[in-house]
């Protein structure tokens, strides 16, 4: 009976939300039980017609109003009253026995639930930071063996330029100049110490102590320093390319056997490159630049560089060049990673 009345009334109040929400209270009720109830009610109605009103009153005040309105059909229940009713129904819908307040409560509960979850993850992350040293990464094997990168690097590893058209190589020069600003002799002398070559620059002491860095002056690069030839050889078709090894905290090359760089034609005629000059002349990264202590304490650390000066390369054709690191503990033939211990680029110098 109750359900029938509801459905009869439903079209008069087509609020979307009523249909969206499930009927909470009836979930575990059985419709048979409902039927029984309904049947009983119906039986009562048939014998004592007045009972229905009482039943209705139990259901809630709004409903009674509603019933009166419908039953009497008087226009006195004007639009204003109806609006009020809609608002009250929105806040407390007796038919669904569901109210906005309750939906709100659920939101509040979920808010607190998520707040406590946030507290939990914050706590856990805090504990994580307690176990992690800010100076030394816990594991470094993922970043070893060291990768290799070259400068100038814009977007690709293809060096295409025409010697007679400065605009084709100008950006390499700008890039290199910018990169080498940090290597200016004056800056290096001011910030860093001149430490003895050929041996590790080990700085014992507390972990949190600031570490000193060894000088790597721009002038070490000689012809590729841009000091004598501000175009780094590009204007003459003898480009300089700087090579650096990726920094790894704690990495030390083999003692007495610094990491060397050697370049050759990757595929094709080896005579395409007739001569390369390396600066520093040893074509190696001196041991004094190792180990690296991490950026928190080793603030002014300057990565060592090796400059390759391709003084005599075949012109007007693409020459693939592979530069490899050589030394003990260096891997330069990983198949998946073409930047570990080596780098491949092409030179295509037009005249």
């Amino acid at each position, binding site marked *: 009976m109750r359900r029938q009345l509801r459905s009869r009334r439903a079209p008069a109040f087509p609020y979307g939300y009523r249909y969206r929400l499930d009927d909470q209270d009836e979930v575990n009720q059985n419709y048979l039980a409902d039927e029984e109830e309904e049947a009983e009610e119906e039986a009562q109605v048939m014998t004592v017609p007045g009972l229905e009103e009482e039943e209705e009153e139990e259901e809630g005040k709004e409903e009674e109003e509603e019933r009166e309105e419908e039953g009497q059909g008087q226009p006195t229940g004007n639009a204003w009253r109806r609006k009020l009713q809609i608002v009250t129904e929105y806040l407390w819908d007796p038919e669904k026995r569901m109210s906005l307040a309750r939906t709100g409560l659920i939101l509040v509960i979920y808010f607190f639930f998520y707040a406590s979850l946030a507290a939990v993850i914050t706590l856990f992350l805090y504990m994580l930071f307690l176990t992690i040293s800010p100076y030394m990464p816990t594991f*470094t094997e993922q*970043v070893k063996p060291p990768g290799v990168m070259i400068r100038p690097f814009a977007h690709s590893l293809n060096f295409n330029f025409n010697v007679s058209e400065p605009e084709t190589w100008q950006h390499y020069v700008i890039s290199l100049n910018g990169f080498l600003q940090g290597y200016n002799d004056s800056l290096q002398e001011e910030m860093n110490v001149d430490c003895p070559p050929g041996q590790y620059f080990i700085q014992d002491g507390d972990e949190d102590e600031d570490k000193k860095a060894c000088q790597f002056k721009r002038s070490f690069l000689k012809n590729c320093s841009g000091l004598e030839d501000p175009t780094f050889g590009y204007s003459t078709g003898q480009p300089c390319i700087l090579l650096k090894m990726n920094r790894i905290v704690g990495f030390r090359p083999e003692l007495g056997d610094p990491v060397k760089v050697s370049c050759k034609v990757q595929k094709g005629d080896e005579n395409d490159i007739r001569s390369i000059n390396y600066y520093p002349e040893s074509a190696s990264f001196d041991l004094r630049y190792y180990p690296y202590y991490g950026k928190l304490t080793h603030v002014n650390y300057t990565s060592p560089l090796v400059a390759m000066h391709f003084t005599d390369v075949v012109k007007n054709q693409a020459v693939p060049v592979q530069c490899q690191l050589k030394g003990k503990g260096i891997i330069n033939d990983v198949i998946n990673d073409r930047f570990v211990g080596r780098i491949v680029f092409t030179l295509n110098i037009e005249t």
Partner: protein
Amino acid sequence: MEPGKEKGTATPREQNQSPRPNLKPVTMNKNLRKKKKKDLEELKKEVDMDDHKLTLDELSAKYSVDLTRGHSLKDAQEILFINGPNSLTPPPSIPNWVKFCKQMFGGFSLLLWTGAFLCFLAYSINLRYNEKADKDNLYLGIVLSAVVLITGCFSYYQESKSSKIMESFKNMVPQQALVIRDGERMQINVKDVVLGDLVEVKGGDQVPADIRVISAQGCKVDNSSLTGESEPQSRCPDCTHENPLETRNIIFFSTNCVEGTARGIVISTGDNTVMGRIASLTSGLTMGQTPIAVEIEHFIHLITAVAVFLGVTFFFLSLILGYGWLDAVIFLIGIIVANVPEGLLATVTVCLTLTAKRMARKNCLVKNLEAVETLGSTSTICSDKTGTLTQNRMTVAHLWFDKTVYEADTSEEQTTGKTFPKSSDTWFYLARIAGLCNRADFKPHQESVPVAKRATTGDASESALLKFIEQSYNSVNEMREKNPKVAEIPFNSTNKYQMSIHLLEDNPQAHMLMMKGAPEKILDFCTSFMLNGQEFPMDEEMKVDFQNAYLELGGMGERVLGFCYLNLPSNFSKGFQFNTDELNFPMESLCFVGLISMIDPPRTAVPDAVGKCRNAGIKVIMVTGDHPITAKAIAKSVGIISEANETAEEMAARLNIPVSQLNTKSIKAIVVHGSELKDMDSNQLDHILKTYKEIVFARTSPQQKLIIVEGCQRLGAIVAVTGDGVNDSPALKKADIGIAMGITGSDVSKQAADMILLDDNFASIVTGVEEGRLIFDNLKKSIAYTLTSNIPEITPFLMFIILSIPLPLGTITILCIDLGTDMVPAISLAYESPESDIMKRLPRNPKTDNLVNHRLIGMAYGQIGMIQALAGFFTYFVILAENGFKPLDLLGIRLYWDDARLNDLEDSYGQQWTYEQRKVMEFTCQTSFFISIVIVQWADLIICKTRRNSLFKQGMKNKVLLFGIFEETMLAAILSYTPGMDVALRMYPLKINWWFCAIPYSALIFIYDEGRKLIIRRRPGGWLEKETYY
């Protein structure tokens, strides 16, 4: 019964009202449908037949057949060629490729196909603009397509396997028919019988077609499967009724000939037979979806809506955030893959299959996999009486002699041990009369079979007496040999008695006249009665006692027979020629001995089963073609009408007031006669179905059964119907779950049903209900378990887009979870034992108690899933932090991280990473995220074991579940540590301690949920229960 008329009244209902729209796609085109509809109309019309009115000559002319020699072989061949074989066309089955396509494109498949399509699209766009396109999208597209194909094939295979069970029922025994062709009798296959064939049918045969009888000797047929009449009907060549169904000169296809022989002409074959028409009508009825199908569809819609909403939202969000179109499409793919529980539908299928197997072991054979659950949702069972509730075997129930009513043992196994004073001399006389004045006999070669189960020839009542005497007195055959029969008058409906005269073994010269029959008729013959072996003259007191006893036994719905005898005087001694036509011997002043009453007794297990159904909140309604009194008696004895309740008539009789003055409110039981039902409109029927708790419908026709089922469905009930006859099959088809009888059931009813009770026992239904409810609960758990891992699958993508962190979980890894590690544990929940007595709660309300409701989603997505996501992210952050990337530095790093040309990306320590090194790092994190999900899914699995009880109460007895935990862990380890996985799936080995990062979260999940359940148990009906009990 006038089936034609009733069919007429039923027709408009079936057209206008289909309580639930058929949601299944109809693939036929319009014209075909129209034609089919027209056919259905024709089927519903009255059986139009005039062959029974024709004379033999006309018949011979009509079918151009010689009535003694039959068809010639050549003619028969031709007719067979023209009319086709004499067999029922199986109901139109959906072609296999349509079923296959439904599996391919139904459910989540469409969403996954979209994902795959987007993958290929992304790949081809990539291919077009970049020379070296990333093959990842191509692979993912292939994998997604493969997933859809494989899960689709799997579901299809499962479904076809369960439908194959049914095929074993077909052609179980190739029936043979005896036809006369070219004057020669020959055994041929029933399907080769043609129109006009001259056929001979004898006792025990199944009738091969609709046959007009041309000659018959004592032929009786059992029409019960067609009309519901349980009495065998005699058949003769004369037309006795206008209505072909009532006339005696037609025997119908697939009914059984009980005794005698008949010869006749085949007047219709195959689908044109009366049986064939009902079968076609049945297969024309539309069937609604099963409740579980509705639930799964609801659930799929829900998940699809979430997936599409999230996908589209983030697609546009990522465009707004400045990602490219291609990126946005890839995000969309990821979100779709993460949202769709790919393995879930397969899991559900497996769970249902497992239950179907378990039920088959308990004699419930499920034809349609989805019907497994339907019994669990059932709220009303409309049960046929004969054969389901009862043994379908007349048995002696009561005896009345020496002025006392004695109860006989009616149980199936003769175990109740009820006895009566066998020493009484009256019993000796009664037993002799019952055994000798009896034409029934045991069929030969049954010595090893228990007496109660032996097959007999003859009338049901006589067989009952025969078995009863054999069991409780002596061997009847021996008795008959010693007391040979010299004369008899067989029973007929005008006499209403049967008489036989025997020579007596103890006095071989004397004859004894024995008589049995309708009690009032018998009493008229008697002038004396027997009490404790002594004859006394009949007096008023005895007559009153007799009346009372007769009423008492009759009121129990039993068929009562009276017994009397007469010692013939010496002038009728041995050698006297008795003439039964002219009665040259006295047949009056007999001595009344007693009454024996018989009933088709309920099966032993039925009252218990009905009680269980009651407890489980299931309304059991009896719908039978039998008489109201018998129906009521059986209803009372099995508890369909409980002891406490009485019908209006009974109450009126007790209070001695007219029925109209009763307070109808207190009456909960009613017996509705078919003729009353005929005059009711649907409102009145609804009123009856709603008002009364205990209902018996008696004398109902097949169409009325259909109406009752529809009435219940209209009230929102999920209705199970049991039945065995062809007349039940429309109702079986219409019901949410039709249950046919495996032994006595007709093929048509089995065809229409969803489930077959192999042992014909109503008690098996209770098993079905139990299993159905259990699987519903367990499916909820299984789905809750599977859905939970969706959140840790989706959130990585969302965080990837919003926070621009390296992708924490890849699509391939998601598939590894959904189709790998989650599968076995989810299936193992199907083996979970019930938490409480599921047979003591009410059936679920299909409107509100959904398989997947917002509480389940809230729990899985909103609560447990979130904790799981935290576990995953925590592990992810731990690994990155330990390797140099601290969480705060990761925010916004995505653009650089995913730049393949950037090979010196700095981490939090100033170290520089190549692209490939970063990617290895990223995939290691994804592996660890995956492992973390596996670890938190342990806890999820354990909490999903119960919905209310504590784990400590439920225990860890589910071995499959333990295996599931082991299996998922092993699988995770294999995926992580097997060499080559880095290339194949981009999964990398983890350090052991990274496995432990998620364990605190596992514990958190467990503690949280145990706490939640504790509160739910402590405060039943409380707020938390309403919000989180799924």
